[in-house]
């Protein structure tokens, strides 16, 4: 594995929002097929990381570099990053009333295809794939006709994110606290969906506060994020240690010293 080219390389990244520095010297290297979990207390900068990588407006990078699949990610527009294969599963997916899920999926799939010089997907092919995806995430087919996230429950929204991921087939999926607000059944379902998508050419960053999601999605690496940088890295067993001892155990003077909730 060590000779494989990296999919994502983050070096000495300093970033924040409205002049408030949140990411302070972040380093990470992800190779194709790897699953990395990023854990940490509230306010450590976990969600900020996802927004900075996807290029959300208002999130400014001060210094450092991010290379994604050989390209300078920081110079790319939000949609260019998406079309290059970066996917962010939102913690709180927003509603787009009146725009059907199917319509939205087609527009997204077509955008990615266009960026890769491919023709638009035929409606029948899209429908076929969407139906299969619905089945996989256990959403009734009727959801395809409903407005994007319109009136969905929290769990349905998360599964809908997963459905978009299944159709877009990204190279890197960032799951931003996808486990928050899910009951155990929904959590297992989401984990099953993610596991089914694990492959040699797809990597994952799983951002989570709790260890429990990692019972179902086994990460290759676990990193602890505190005050904007990784303070400890290890394998899956690190998550279990954290679970039993709490973040305070890290004994970093700058680290907020407990798990909330």
């Amino acid at each position: 594995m060590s000779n494989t080219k990296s999919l994502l390389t983050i070096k000495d990244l300093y970033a924040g929002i409205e002049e408030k520095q949140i990411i302070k010297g972040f380093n990470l290297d992800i190779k194709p097929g790897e699953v990395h979990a990023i854990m940490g207390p509230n306010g450590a900068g976990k969600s900020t990381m996802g927004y900075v990588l996807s290029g959300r407006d208002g999130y400014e990078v001060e210094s450092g570099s991010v290379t994604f699949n050989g390209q300078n990610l920081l110079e790319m527009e939000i949609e260019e990053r998406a079309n290059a294969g970066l996917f962010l599963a939102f913690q709180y997916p927003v509603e787009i009333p009146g725009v059907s899920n199917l319509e939205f999926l087609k527009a997204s799939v077509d955008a990615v295809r266009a960026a890769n010089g491919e023709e638009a997907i035929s409606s029948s092919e899209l429908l076929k794939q969407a139906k299969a995806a619905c089945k996989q995430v256990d959403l009734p087919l009727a959801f395809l006709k409903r407005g994007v996230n319109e009136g969905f429950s929290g769990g349905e929204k998360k599964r809908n994110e997963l459905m978009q991921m299944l159709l877009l087939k990204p190279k890197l999926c960032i799951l931003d606290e996808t486990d928050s607000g899910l009951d155990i059944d929904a959590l297992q379902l989401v984990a099953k969906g993610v596991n089914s998508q694990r492959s040699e050419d797809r990597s994952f960053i799983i951002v989570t506060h709790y260890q429990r999601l990692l019972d179902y999605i086994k990460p290759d690496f676990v990193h602890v994020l505190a005050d904007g940088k990784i303070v400890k890295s290890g394998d899956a067993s690190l998550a279990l240690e954290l679970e039993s001892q709490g973040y305070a155990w890290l004994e970093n003077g700058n680290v907020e010293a407990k798990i909330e909730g």
Partner: protein
Amino acid sequence: MTVQVEINEALGREYEAGFISDIESETFEPGLDESVIERISKMKNEPEWMLEWRLGAFREWLKMEEPDWALVDYPKIDFQAIAYYSAPKSMKDKPKSLDEVDPELIRTYEKLGIPLIEQQMLAGIAVDAVFDSVSVVTTFREKLYEAGVIFCPISEAIVEYPELVKKYLGSVVGRKDNYYSALNCAVFTDGSFVYIPKGVRCPMELSTYFRINEQNTGQFERTLIIADEGSHVSYLEGCTAPQRDENQLHAAVVELIAMDNAEIKYSTVQNWYPGDENGKGGIYNFVTKRGICHTSAKISWTQVETGSAVTWKYPSCILKGDNSVGEFYSVALTRGRQQADTGTKMIHIGKNTKSTIITKGISAGRSNNSYRGLVKMMASADGARNFTECDSLLIGDKCGAHTFPYIESRNPSAIVEHEATTSKVSDEQLFLCRQRGLDPEKAVSMIVNGFCKEVFKELPMEFAVEASKLLEISLEGSVG
């Protein structure tokens, strides 16, 4: 770079219908007095009663004041600076068939996406093409005539079907109704006339396409649609004008008559030139549209308003007959410096009459978009019901959305419901769309289209697609 700036750049598109056709026209000198009206009437070979009717309206108009209650602001119109008649010279000999029509005119409509050659047309849609002050051609007339349907320019109907015109013209919008309708009665030049006989379901969609081309002219169109007992018709109008620095006046009157059990569906896609981003130029669209429903009849207005510098328009229904139904579905989009004050009036007279009002206002740029609607339940309207939903969507933070609902109920058994919402295209929505690969332009148009879906689904299918495309184009430079 902010999202707003990116959208501005991505949407840097021109008003596509803004070209000027090079067509030699015969245009009156600007100015308005009784002699001008006499000349219009003479150009149209009108009978004496028609001229008298026009002159009567003109004398009323002189006594009237320009209304100022709408939330729109524009310089006073100089009615003496407007030319009241303009027609392509080639139309003087009254071409008998399409082969005799000036090819430049046909090309103009082709460029606008309206082929006039029947073989090339969308099957099932008949078109009356009105260019400045005259109807250029009306397609599928014979086919419609076989079904008993009359579809012709109103100037022709005045000569050919005087009884029908005499009986119904001005019967819904009287000559004294309002300032602009009175002016229209005096100087109207062309428009469409439709008569659907008893029990006939019109075999085609009917449509009129209005084009203003000549400079400094006003367009005063007049449309009259009569659906006899138990008949059914769906009618669509479209409008565009060249890009010019001067404002131009369009003051139309549309009257619909739905006899017992008849149904009229009237759709509008209005895309008059809106002026530039600083508010220079554009059409003043001051329109009176009203229909009357007799027993168990139904009139449904659907409008997609994206153009015009100033819009003042309230398509209305008089629900006279028991069990009659009125509907108003509207999408109004304003951007740049556009101003729209639009809505409807539902006048419930008959028992168990029902009306539905669904409006979607979208404001962008520095525009102002107002919904103004009246629901009136007369004492006789036992069991009448109205449901109104007004939704406003704001893009950016320099535009305005306003809602002026008026409700008058004189019958305690009548039920009136009103719902209103205001929302913004949020950064979260844009971010989600872009994170899924859509560029900002596509993202905004998708969000706006979703917002309008309830109304678009009321449009005839072919036009729903067109309206959705138009919206996309109209969002040009919409934010900032």
